């Protein structure tokens, strides 16, 4: 008996809320079908932190809000044949990008100094060098690397993710029915 090598999938949440990952878990018992046909590589689902092999598909939730997001996204592009933006944050910047029309210094001031619930008598801002540096603006993934597919939704429904994944894995065209096309 030969065991065919299964295609590998990597997933990550950048500047997202993990809602898209929750939606992926929401395919329920079809998860069992999924692990029959794919192996998960780097992903919060199996807690693998670095790429172990080249992957057929990379699913990216969230846009880029800091330099670490950019670095990880570039790594995904290098290691995945097909890179997919999942959800509104990856596709447009989403809710984190609400800060984009406010200067970064003002955002930090509101969050760490002058916000109504902040207690910070010394007025220091977080400066630990372990912390990723914030970008001036939150940007969607396709403004940083080439993205092959965009999946809409906040989050995309489990059915949407299932249809996209099964189409990609069987080399078919991704064609969603109208009712699954949503920006919310």
């Amino acid at each position, binding site marked *: 008996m030969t065991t065919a090598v299964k295609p590998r999938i990597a997933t990550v949440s950048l500047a997202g809320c993990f809602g898209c990952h929750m939606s992926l878990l929401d395919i329920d018992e079809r998860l069992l079908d999924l692990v029959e046909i794919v192996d998960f590589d780097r992903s919060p689902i199996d807690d693998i932190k670095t790429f172990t092999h080249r992957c057929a598909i990379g699913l990216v939730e969230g846009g880029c809000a800091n330099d670490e997001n950019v670095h990880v996204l570039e790594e995904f592009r290098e290691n995945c044949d097909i890179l997919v933006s999942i959800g*509104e944050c990856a596709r*447009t910047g*989403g809710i984190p*990008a609400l800060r*984009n029309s406010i200067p970064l210094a003002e955002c930090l001031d509101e969050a760490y100094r002058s916000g109504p619930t902040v207690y910070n008598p010394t007025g220091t801002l977080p400066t630990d060098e372990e912390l990723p540096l914030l970008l001036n603006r939150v940007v969607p993934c396709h403004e940083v690397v080439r*993205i092959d*597919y*965009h999946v809409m939704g*906040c989050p995309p429904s489990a059915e949407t993710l299932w249809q996209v994944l099964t189409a990609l894995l069987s080399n078919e065209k991704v064609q969603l029915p109208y009712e699954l096309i949503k920006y*919310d």
Partner: protein
Amino acid sequence: MPEEVTLTIDGKKITAKIGQSILEAAEENGVYIPHLCALQELHSTGACRVCMVRIDGRYSASCTQPVSDGLQVEVESDELLEIRKMIVEMLFAEGNHFCPCCEKSGNCELQALAYRLGIDSVRFPYQFPQREVDAEHPDVFIDHNRCILCGRCVEASRNADHKTALEFIGRGKNKRLAVTGIVDLDRADKAVSVCPVGAILLKRQAFQVPLGQRRFDHEPIGAEVESRNPEVRTP
């Protein structure tokens, strides 16, 4: 002078009444031409350019172009689809459209057009402009982040409500909607109900229609026009 003229849309002959725009004639014949600023009961200003077609080979806004005998109108082509997509993508890139937290989502004509045109990403860099939310009026929000400058509300205030409660000020990328303050905007004004997007909203009405029952949840925009024509299938 004859009351009716004959023209062709994508090679098919249709009859239209003199005085109609190409957009109106097309709709009456079950052909949907995507549009954002034109509204049947208002005077068309040709502001958005989404309704672009080719008339005898020339590009023109179909909402402002009157019908005349023998015109050859092209509506469906890969090139025109691409032009429409670009115009709609520019509207998304130029304003601040956060659909997941917008009260208009599901009932919004801009969003519905993007669905219909198959826009899954915007090719232009998002501008994230700094714009205001005007909540001063007791019953009406004006959220400039979502305004696409279509002019419907200005037109309605002037010619349907017979006020000039709203006007445009500024030019180019500084153009924006302004409340004139000369007369009061009333919650029952037509100007308040015609906005295609979530830029003019009545207060205390948000998210009243549940998901699954909103205007564009099940049928794409334009489907009602196409249902008049048995030969067309909505994509």
